[in-house]
């Protein structure tokens, strides 16, 4: 049975269990129909031209984790930002781990979607926000149909969460192959601020396929800093669809660090509904062997006087493949938009590939939009310069790559996280950080 058939069959098997009498039930039914019609995307679709899913879909995935698995904290400590105090929402094989988590209901809600979907006190928020910005493409629909568990974060008005929140999804490898569909809902109310770190981590080399959907709402003057750490092992694949709806004067910044995984697809969608919004999208991709990382970004400028900044850097070695498709839509009403997009790539080997495509659709006439894309090798002159100072060619290459990638980190606001990522980048590149950068 194909994965698609398996999923549809299992949906009808479980459909009645889940919130049969709520409006969510209708959403799910619509969503599964949408997935049934569309199926998994294929290379025939323009948006999936360079990102073939067929090899991943062939595995015989377990779609419902059967039992609660446990992990010792000491075995996974390194995946947490343990240097500082954080809230933690941790899932093991898709199931909430109260042992590893640290949630809160003190003034802010940092808890579980499963609770929010079932308890009456969350009903209003769910009705107002759940599935309100997520689109009905096939993979998002598939997630909506099965959406059951994930992070539920609501930061009320004027509240600044002092601790960053970590959302971590572990896969134990207790299943031969595992399919996961976390669903996160994040609402940052007026003037509130939050920092979130998300990561997916498989603990064995058993195949894992994650189809995660995250909806983020920033109300008036709210701000969010969101960091995605994609450094999973090479048998794990991730399709991440994130949708942000920004109200007036809000600030949303998403950093995506893609170093690991077999196939990683990021669909990052910003909708600027109110005026004077600021959106920042940054990414560093460093991959090798047969890895693939695909960034599809969309910034939809709907209202006037908004800004967006995109800066994606990629370093591709081995036979790896990179995709960057950056779409900016400036609607007719969105005058005085300032949209900037930059995508720079370095190909280290002859067999590495990057497909980079800016896509600007501008319907307003008083806007500033700029984009730039470079694909190159390392600068020979810069290498020679360093060599004349006695630095070996390999070390010079590494320093140059490090310099290329690390300037994206300037905007990372959590110093401990910045130090972590700096080290990760240094490790990936093989630069000897005998000094403090």
């Amino acid at each position: 049975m194909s994965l698609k058939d398996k999923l549809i069959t299992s949906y009808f098997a479980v459909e009645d269990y889940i919130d049969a009498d709520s409006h969510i039930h209708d959403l799910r039914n619509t969503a599964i129909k949408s997935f049934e019609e569309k199926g998994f995307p294929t290379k025939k679709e323009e948006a999936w031209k360079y990102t073939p899913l067929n090899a991943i879909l062939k595995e015989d995935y377990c779609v419902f984790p059967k039992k609660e698995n446990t992990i010792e904290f000491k075995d996974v400590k390194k995946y947490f930002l343990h240097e500082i105090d954080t809230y933690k929402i941790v899932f093991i094989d898709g199931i909430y781990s109260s042992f590893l988590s640290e949630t809160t209901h003190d003034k802010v809600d940092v808890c579980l979607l499963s609770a929010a979907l079932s308890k009456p006190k969350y009903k209003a928020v769910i009705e107002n926000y759940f599935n309100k910005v997520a689109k009905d493409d096939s993979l998002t629909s598939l997630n909506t149909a099965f959406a059951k568990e994930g992070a539920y974060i609501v930061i009320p008005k004027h509240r600044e969460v002092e601790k960053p929140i970590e959302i971590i999804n572990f896969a134990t490898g207790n299943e031969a192959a595992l399919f996961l569909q976390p669903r996160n809902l994040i609402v940052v109310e007026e003037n509130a601020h939050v920092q979130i770190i998300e990561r997916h981590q498989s603990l064995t080399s058993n195949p894992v396929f994650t189809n995660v959907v995250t909806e983020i709402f920033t109300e008036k003057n709210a701000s969010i800093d969101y960091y995605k750490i994609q450094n999973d092992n090479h048998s794990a694949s991730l399709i991440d669809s994130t949708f942000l709806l920004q109200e007036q004067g809000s600030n949303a910044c998403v950093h995506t660090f893609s170093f690991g995984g077999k196939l990683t697809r990021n669909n990052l969608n910003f909708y600027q509904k109110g005026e004077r919004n600021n959106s920042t999208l940054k990414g560093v991709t460093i991959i090798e062997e047969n890895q693939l990382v695909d960034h599809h970004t969309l910034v939809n400028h709907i209202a006037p006087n908004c800004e967006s900044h995109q800066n994606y850097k990629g370093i591709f070695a081995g036979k790896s493949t990179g995709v960057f498709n950056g779409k900016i839509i400036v609607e007719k009403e969105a005058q005085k938009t300032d949209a900037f997009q930059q995508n720079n790539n370095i190909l280290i080997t002859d067999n590495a590939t990057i497909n980079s495509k800016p896509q600007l659709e501008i319907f307003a006439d008083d806007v500033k939009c700029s984009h730039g894309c470079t694909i190159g090798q390392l600068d020979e002159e810069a290498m020679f310069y360093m060599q004349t100072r006695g630095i070996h060619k390999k070390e010079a290459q590494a320093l140059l790559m490090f310099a290329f990638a690390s300037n994206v980190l300037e905007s990372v606001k959590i110093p401990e996280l910045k130090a972590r990522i700096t080290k990760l980048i240094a490790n990936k590149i093989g630069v000897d950080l005998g000094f403090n950068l």
Partner: protein
Amino acid sequence: MLQIKNLHAGIDNEEILKGINLEVKAGEIHAIMGPNGSGKSTLASVIAGKEEFEVTQGSISFEHEDIAALAPEERAHKGIFLSFQYPIEIPGVSVTNFIKTAINEGRKAKGMVDMPASEMLKMIREKAELLEMDRKFLSRSLNEGFSGGEKKRNEIFQMAMLEPKLAILDETDSGLDIDALRIVANGVNKLRNDKNAILVITHYQRLLDYIVPDFVHVLLDGKIVKSGTKELAYELEERGYDWIKEEVKIV
């Protein structure tokens, strides 16, 4: 120290250096002058080991060892330093960290352990002072957003830190105002001793007022056509290069 014999070198089958002969001894300062396109920077790059250039004939030896097959970093480890006409910007790597890496790579090549941090710091302070460099300057990204003068000062700072036996200064005076020129030249002079040598590559005589050469060579169309003492530099300043071209033709 440096011996160049009948050196022919070029790029993409185009010969740029057409038989250079040059000998530089310890304690000497040599100046290479010549009009644009005469091959001055190529000569500097070939001595430093730039791989783009192919040596087709002749030899380069440094301290009696043929260095033609060595990589640029290996030549650096032996004590050759090239100050760039256009120093490269490397964002994200500070001046301090860059020089630390360079020094320790050199020490590693000699089988030495890393320089202790305190010693490194002391040396950095001393040499920065020598070049009248601000402390803040040292934590900035290498050459990024530096003015022309700052870039050149940073080159000589690195030279001071690396203490080369042979320093090649490629158009170090270009883009410098008179104050910066004085600081840079002063730095170079203080680094001079009877064990090292300097090869100054320049367009103008101006720098040679400050860094006084023992020998001046005129490079024309890939060949050294005339050598003399510092007076030759004044003559070139006054009369230009045309008279030498005429002389060469007659010969």
